[in-house]
C-alpha cells in the first residue's frame, strides 16, 4: 500500500505538485496522512493521500481536524483527498466529502495512468497540440502524394483554394491540354 502512496506521489510530482514532509504540519499542528503534496505555480491545492483506513473514523477526524485548522488560519487552499483501496461506507464518504474533494482509487497497485485518471481533476487537461491538429488539409494531401508530387499535382491541389468548380475546371484544362497540344501538331503537319 505504501508503494501505491508513492506511486500517487510520483504522479503528482510529475504534474508539478510538491511533496510535503511527513507528517503534515499545518499551522503548527501535525496531521498523520500517508502523504501530502501541494500545488505550485498556478495551483495551490493541498492533496492528501490516505490508504483505505481500517478505522474510517480516524480518517474523518483527521480530515475534519485539518479542515478546522485551515479555517482557523483563513487558508483558502482547496483540499483533495486521494483515497487508496476500498471505498469506505457512504456515511464516511459523506463526512469526508464535506471537507475535501475525495478522489478514490479502488484498484490495487494502480498504474500511473490509472492514477492520473483518478486524480485528473487536479491536472491540466491534455488538449490537442497544434501538430496533433494537423497541418493544413491541402498540405496533408501533398504530403501524402510524397515523392511523386509534381507541378501538375500542385496545380490541381491549389485549385481547391478557390472551390470545387475551379478544381473541376483545372482538371478539364489539364486533360484538354493533353489532347489540345495535339491540335497544334496537327496544324504543323
Amino acid at each position, binding site marked *: 500500500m505504501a508503494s501505491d502512496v508513492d506511486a500517487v506521489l510520483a504522479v503528482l510530482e510529475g504534474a508539478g505538485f510538491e511533496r510535503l514532509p511527513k507528517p503534515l504540519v499545518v499551522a503548527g499542528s501535525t496531521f498523520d496522512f500517508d502523504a501530502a503534496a501541494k500545488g505550485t505555480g498556478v495551483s495551490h491545492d493541498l492533496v492528501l493521500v490516505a490508504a483505505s483506513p481500517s478505522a474510517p473514523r480516524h480518517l474523518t477526524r483527521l480530515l475534519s481536524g485539518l479542515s478546522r485548522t485551515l479555517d482557523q488560519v483563513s487558508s483558502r487552499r482547496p483540499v483533495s483527498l486521494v483515497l487508496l483501496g476500498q471505498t469506505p461506507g457512504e456515511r464516511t464518504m459523506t463526512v469526508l466529502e464535506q471537507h475535501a474533494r475525495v478522489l478514490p482509487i479502488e484498484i490495487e497497485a494502480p498504474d500511473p495512468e490509472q492514477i492520473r485518471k483518478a486524480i485528473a481533476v487536479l491536472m491540466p487537461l491534455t*488538449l490537442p497540440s497544434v501538430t496533433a491538429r494537423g497541418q493544413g488539409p491541402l498540405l496533408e*494531401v501533398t504530403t501524402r502524394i510524397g515523392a511523386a508530387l509534381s507541378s501538375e499535382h500542385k496545380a490541381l491541389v491549389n485549385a481547391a483554394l478557390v472551390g470545387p468548380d475551379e478544381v473541376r475546371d483545372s482538371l*478539364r484544362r489539364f486533360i484538354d491540354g493533353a489532347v489540345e497540344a*495535339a491540335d497544334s501538331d496537327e496544324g504543323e503537319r
Partner: protein
Amino acid sequence: MTDLPLRSITISDFRKLEGTRRLPLDAPIVLLYGANGTGKTSVLSALELALTGEIRSMRRHDARYTAHLPFHGQEFATVTAQVSDAFSAATQPPIMTVGGSRIDGLPAFGPDARRFYSERCYLDQVSLGQLLELYQYREGKEESALARFVNELLGLEQLDALRSGLDDANNYARLRKLSEPLAEAEIQAKQAESDLSRANKLSESAKAELSGHLAQLLRAMAGLGFEPGRPGPEEFASDAAEFLRSIESREESAEAQRLSTTLVALGGKLEELLLRPSMTRLDEARSMAVEAAAAHKRWQADHGSEIARFRSELAELALPASGAISVALEDEIRAIDERYERNQRVAAEVVTLEAKLIDGRAILGTVEAQLGSALKQAGSLAAAFATLREFVSDNTCPVCDRDFTEVSTTHLGLHLDQKISELTDQGRRIQALTQQQASVRAHLQGDEQKLTELSGRLLDTSQLGTAASRRNLLNDLRVRHEQLQPLIVAGVDHLANAGRARADLAELEATADEENRVRMELDAAAQALRSSVLQTSEPLVEYWRRLASIAAAQVSQLSAREAGIAEARTFVELVLRSLKAVEGIGVTVGHAAQHMFLWNGRIEEAKRRQAVARQVHTAASSARAAIVQRVFTKSLNEVWRSVFSRLAPREIFVPAFGIPTSSKTALELKIETVHSSGETGGSPQMMLSAGNLNTAALSLFVALHLAVDPVVPCLVFDDPVQSMDEVHIAQFAGLIRVLSKFHRRQVVIAVHERALFDYLSFELSPAFEGDELITIELGELADAGDRGIRRLVWLPDQAIAS
C-alpha cells in the same frame, strides 16, 4: 491579468434589474450569486445582449423577445459591456438600447467574437438541459449546429472541393464528358485506326491487283516471244515496254490494211462491171453504129435538100421549121379567115349606123322646133299675168273691164292664178324638151364617133389582096407538108438510131477500159501480195477472190499481232499504274499509322494525367479520412472524454462521437457512449443517468470550446450544477479551476444556492500572485455598501510551510 476579455457590464432597467447597476467582470473568475428571482440570469442575458446584440435562447423561444427586456413599466433598457480592446468592435463601449421591437446600438464584440461567444462561450441555463438535442437539431436542410461545428473543425471544405472537383477523374467515361477535346481525341484515334485498317486493306488489294496484272503481262509477253530478264516488277515492266516499242510493225500493218481496202474496193468495181453489158457485144455494137450512120446519110442524100427548101419557105413566112408544122400552118390559115369575117361584120355595122344617124338628125330637128315655140309662148305671158294679178281685186278684168262672171263662174283672180300656174307647167315642158334635145345630140355624137372608128377599122383593098395571097401560100405549104411528113419522120428515126448505136458503143468501150484497169490493179496487188498474176483460165472474179483472201489473211495475222502488242502494252500500263497505286497507298498507310500513333499518344497522355488527378483524389480522400479520424479522436473525443471523466469519474459509459467511416462528403454525426472496456454502447440518453446526461452535455460544451482556438477565451455558465450531487460539484469546481488557472479561460458562473456559492467562492479562490476572484451577490446585498461585490485577491498561505 490584461488578457481578460470581459471587463464590466452596466445594466439599466433590464428585465428584473431595476435602475442602473455596473458590475465589474475584470477577474479570471467571476462568481455571481442570486436567489431565484433576483436577476442573476438577467445579468448573464444582459451580458450576452451587450456582447453579441441578441439573446439566443430567448430568440429561439420568442422572436419578439426584445419587447419584454425593459424592466416592468419601463419603455426601454440599456446595456453596456466593456471588453478588452482585443475583442472590442468600437473604441468606446457602445450603449445598447432595447425596447419594443428594436435593439439600437452596436454590440461590444466584433462579428467573429460574437459568434464564438454565442456558440462556444456562453451556456445559458435553458440550453444546458437541451444541449444534446439543440446541437443535433436540424432545421430543414440545414446541417445541425454540431455538424456545422465539426465541419468547420475538420476544415474539409478544400478537401471536399478537391475530391468533388476531381471526381470525374475516377471514371474515364465521365472524364470524356468533362473534356470535349478528349472525347474528340477518342473519335480521332478511332478514326485514325479505321483509316489505317482501310489503308492496309487497300494496300493488300493493290498488291493483289499488281500481281494479277504482272501475271497477265507475263502471259502476253510470252505470246510475243519475250522472256523476262531482270528481277523486280518495275524492271520487268520497263523491259517489256522497251521490247514492245522495238517490235512495232505499224507500217507493215497499214500497208496490208491498205491492200486489203484496195481489194475490197476492186471487188466493188468488179461487181459493178458484171452488171454491165457483156464485152462480147462490143463488135456487134460497133457494126450497128456504122450501119445506122449509113442509113442516116442515105436519107439525107435522098430528101435532105427538099426538106431543107420546105423549111426555108416556112422560115420566110416566119413559121417554125420543125416540130408541129402542120398545126402552125392550120393556125395561120384560120387566122386569115377570121380576119375576113370580122371585116365583113364591121362593114355591115357601118351601114346600119349611117341609117341611124339620118333618123337621129331628123328627131333633133323636130325637138328643136318644139322647143323654140314653147320658149316664145311661155316667157313674156307669164310675166304679164303676174303683173296683172296685182291689179285684180274683183271679177272685173283690168284689161277689158268686163265682169268675168259673164264668162265663168270662177273668180277672175282664181282664173289668173290658174293661168299663171299653167304657164309654169309650160316651163316644165320646155325643160323636158331641152333634156330630150341634149340626149338626142349626145346619141348622135356617140354614133358619129363609133362610125368614124368602124370606118377606120375597115380593110382597104390592098390589105385584102395581101391577105388572100398569103392564104394561098399557106395552103400550098400545107399540102406539101402532108406529102413530106413521112420522110421527115423517117429522117428523125435514122438520126435517133445512129445516136443510140453510138452511145451503146461508147459505153461498151468504157466498160472494157474499166475492166482493163481493174485487172492491172489486181496484178499490182498480186505483186504486192507476192502471189501469181492472173492465170489464163482464171476468171477475173476468181482472180480477185484469191487475192482478197490472201490479203485478208495477212491483215488478220498482222492485226492479231497488233492486238497482242496492244494488250501487252495495256498490261504494261496496268502494271505501272498498280505499282504507282501500291506506292501511293504505302504512303497513305504510313500517314495513317503516324496519325494513329499521334492520337493514341495523346490519349495515353490524357490517361497519364487522369492518373495524376486520381492520385490527388486518392490522396485527398486518404487525407480526409485521416483528418476525420484525427479530429474525432484527438480534438473531440479525447477532450470530451477527459472533461467528462473529470466531472463524472465513476461513470463507466463515456459519451463520444461515433467516428464516421464513410468517405461521403456529408458527415453523419452520431453521439454514442463507450464503455470503459472499450466497447461501444448506446446513445447517452439511453446509457446515462439524468445527472450524468447533464454532465455529458456540459462536458461536451466545454470540450467543443477547447477543441478550437479560443477566439474569446472565456466561459460563462448559468447555474450549470443545478442537478449535480456533491461529488460532481467538487469535480466541476476542480474543472473550473483547471480551465481558469491552467488554460487561462476567464470564467463567469452564476449560481442560485448560497451553500454552493460559498463552496465555489472558497474552491475558486485566487491561487497565485495576481490571481483574483470577483463575487457578486444580487438581491438584498445589492443595497449594501459594497453593493454585494467583493474582489478577492491572492494572499500568501501561511498554513503550510513551504
